[in-house]
């Protein structure tokens, strides 16, 4: 009986103590017609229990099936080198198998880690305070939107200015989460030749709004002029929600310093900070804000305090914002957050330090620039936008992107993200991080060039056939 420590004698004695004859009797308050017996249901979709060895074999086979291709996709999930120590320590039983630190004295490990996490996120973003984590970057953006509406009482608006060069799926998630509260998302276009937010369109906004979202870098990897945008929004009485990549912030201006007064709320996806890609989750959303908005923050917050001896210690604080105290009036319904990922991110940032993080960011930029130059020499690869990018950029091709990605997949390359469905024909979003070698960049370039010419000639043939 895996994971059940009871011996038959113990069970008998325990039943005796309780005063029943069988375990089944303990379920006698449950209406008889509701009883089922999964264990006996051999036609069930649930197989019989397997040994760890058998399960290991199955999982290993499936993992090998998916392989370890060379990855040039980003779009919100980024491949970075993760120091070995990060997960060796994060999965230590004491972190891994503890729960939310409700008993502070017995949870100083987790609590201090979270306090350090909050401090590091606040430092990276230039904000005053951070929470202990949200689920991911996308739902985090939704929480930021809800927060901005609560916080910006002056604007009396439930309108949010949402640039179209925010990740399309982030926009969808925000929509799903906020729409039932009557909040509307006003889409703001980007300049078609630059990829950055169209300031002119923005300036034509005349109605009040609760907040403007500014992505930095934006979904195309491009760098926004965050200062102009921030100041404009503040002048209109809107708050500014910065949506940022934490690794990029090693080199880029912290939202707290955007424009004259800085962004009000900063959110982002923390995955680049030591969290494996693992198909898109579990990741970690972070959210930070100015001190004056702290009571509007969703989620857990850890504070430093003292014990009876006056010694420093840590505890969950400001719980009056949360669902378990405030119930229907809470700032959010979030309860379980992404604690283990916060631990990993804290470890990652500690191992790398400021210097290491800047090097990672710089290597991303350098590799990206290298690939851009290589691609410039591939016939028919075009760059629809200027190239002010961090570690992602868009190319446009003259063939079907899905076919290109399929051809690259055959060479064990994840070639990028087809953004055509959202942004128009034949656009490919490519990401290059510090993990890529010169060889891999060449391999990508050559494989792409080969695929393009093959696809073009077969399209021509197809066209030819149709015509003939």
């Amino acid at each position: 009986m895996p994971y059940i420590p009871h011996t038959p004698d113990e069970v008998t004695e325990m039943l005796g103590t309780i005063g029943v004859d069988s375990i089944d009797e303990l379920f006698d308050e449950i209406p008889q017609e509701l009883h089922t017996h999964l264990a006996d249901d051999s036609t069930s979709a649930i197989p019989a229990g397997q040994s760890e060895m058998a399960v290991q074999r199955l999982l290993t086979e499936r993992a090998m099936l998916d392989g370890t291709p060379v990855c040039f996709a980003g779009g919100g999930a980024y491949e970075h080198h993760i120091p070995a120590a990060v997960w060796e320590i994060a999965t230590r039983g004491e972190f891994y198998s503890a729960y939310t630190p409700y008993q502070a004295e017995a949870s100083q490990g987790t609590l201090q880690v979270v306090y350090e996490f909050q401090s590091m996120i606040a430092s990276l973003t230039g904000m005053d305070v951070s929470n202990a984590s949200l689920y991911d970057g996308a739902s985090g953006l939704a929480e930021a939107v809800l927060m901005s509406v609560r916080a910006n009482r002056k604007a009396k608006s439930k309108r949010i200015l949402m640039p179209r060069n925010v990740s399309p799926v982030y926009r969808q998630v925000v929509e799903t989460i906020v729409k039932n509260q009557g909040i509307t998302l006003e889409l703001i276009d980007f300049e078609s030749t630059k990829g950055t937010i169209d300031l002119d369109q923005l300036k034509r906004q005349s109605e009040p709004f609760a907040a403007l979202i500014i992505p930095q870098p934006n979904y195309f990897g491009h760098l926004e002029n965050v200062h102009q945008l921030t100041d404009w929004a503040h002048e209109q009485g809107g708050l500014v929600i910065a949506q940022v990549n934490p690794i990029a912030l090693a080199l880029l201006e912290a939202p707290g310093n955007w424009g004259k007064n800085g962004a009000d709320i900063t959110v982002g996806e923390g995955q680049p900070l030591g969290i494996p890609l693992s198909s898109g989750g579990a990741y970690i959303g972070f959210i930070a804000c100015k001190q004056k908005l702290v009571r509007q923050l969703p989620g857990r917050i850890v504070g430093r305090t003292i014990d009876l001896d006056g010694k420093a210690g840590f505890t969950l604080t400001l719980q009056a914002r949360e669902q378990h105290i405030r119930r229907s009036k809470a700032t959010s319904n979030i309860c379980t957050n992404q604690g283990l990922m916060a631990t990993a991110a804290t470890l990652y940032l500690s191992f790398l330090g400021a210097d290491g993080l800047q090097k990672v960011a710089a290597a991303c930029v350098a590799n990206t620039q290298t690939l851009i130059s290589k691609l410039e020499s591939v016939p028919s690869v075009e760059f629809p936008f200027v190239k002010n990018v961090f570690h992602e950029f868009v190319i446009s091709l003259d063939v079907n992107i899905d076919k290109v990605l399929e051809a690259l997949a055959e060479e064990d390359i994840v070639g990028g993200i087809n953004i055509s469905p959202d942004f128009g024909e034949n656009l490919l979003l490519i990401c290059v991080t510090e993990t890529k070698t010169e060889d891999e960049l060449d391999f990508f370039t050559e494989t792409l060039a080969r695929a393009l010419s093959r696809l073009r000639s077969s399209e021509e043939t197809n066209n030819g056939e149709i015509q003939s």
Partner: protein
Amino acid sequence: MSKRIIEQNAEHLIFELSDKNRRSSSLAPDVDISAVCENLPEFALRKDNLELPQVAELQVVRHYTRLSQKNFSIDTHFYPLGSCTMKYNPRACNTLAQLPGLSGRHPMAHASMSQGVMACLFDLQNMLMEATGMKQVSLTPMAGAQGEFAGVAMIRAYHEHNNDTQRSEIIVPDAAHGTNPATAVMCGYKVKEIPTNEQGDIDIEALEKIIGPQTAGIMLTNPSTLGVFERKIKLIADMIHKAGGLLYYDGANLNAILGKVKPGDMGFDVIHMNLHKTFSTPHGGGGPGAGPLGVSERLQPFLPVPMVAYDGQTYRWVTEKEQPLSIGHLSAWMGNISILLRAYIYALLLGREGMERVADYATLNANYLLKRLADAGFEIAFPERRASHEFILTLRKEAKQLGTNAMDFAKRLLDYGYHAPTTYFPLLVPECFLIEPTETESRDDLDAFVEAMIKIRDEAEQLPDLLKNAPFELPVKRLDDVKAARELDLNYYYQD
């Protein structure tokens, strides 16, 4: 003679170990930062120095290893935190979920490079459907609360789809978890609370009165957070359905009935499961979790995307194209996949017999512990009822007679090497302990816990101040929560 050395327990903040001139890493690539920055537009660049701890690798390892030792956890302590299902997290789930092919896969990798992980997710969907008796499962919610959100949003989408737009209320029992009312409000609903009767069941008369055409649905946990099974569940389901409302099942307590009773059979339209509870994925100091949804047929069209489908040959993602009425996306991809994989591995290890065993032994342990504590003279909140996988003890007598409240007992338990049960929840039982031993604890551990409780009560009688000042054996003594909230110190780098 002994001279305790307090400093030994104190762990500096990582920031205090930092020196900005330290360069001790082989963890970053070698690159000339300032040369690179010249390629970036001036306006976008950081102006101030970046402040992050610069600490050498050994010192970082040491810092966090030592910090970890300050935690209680399942791997080190009995942790009977009611409603949280703190059971053993098999290490195989962790090791296997981290296999390179799984942990390195980009979410946008081509489907031909994704069949392995999709097969796992598809299997998990099916297993969860089967275990809960629901018609379809979407794995995407990232925790119980997000599952609740999605479920209630689907209820709303369903009514709207039927142009049934006057429904504005969600009914929630007073014993419900805080996420339930908070969720209802996030979905634009008003919350109607209904009371619980003395037996821990829902007050049917009170329910009767508040059901009406404005009722969008009801959110229930069964067994409830009072640790008892709601016996009239079929009646309640009929009442709600008759009024045109839908039933939401908060699956946080699924561990109590796994393999024994299916929420689908009770009449629920939509449920979430906390995989970090019943399916034993790690709690990780607060998360991540996973809160998959299961639905009855009528809510199927509204499930959040993506899901995984299989045509007998190839697995594919089901998106809003195939599922046009979907409430949409809840995360950038498909939620906490690395956690879903752990739950999948756990489900394979358990199998169907193992799943039923979970409920059997979780219930056995709870009823045994209840009986032993009752025999020892502790007051049980619902003494006439069977415990489910958890039960409530009230220390109101001790609080009144000895002046030592539930919090004092909880803190002193820590000294004895036990994590405290959930305290002061559910709100309707005074001075309560919500105790959930789970199936993975041995009888010996339960007995030892009872001994500790008896000893503490003796201490409460003889040395009440001892309890009021507990704990003594932990890295810190009792912490000042009031100061924490009044004089906010949330960020090392910033003091208000």
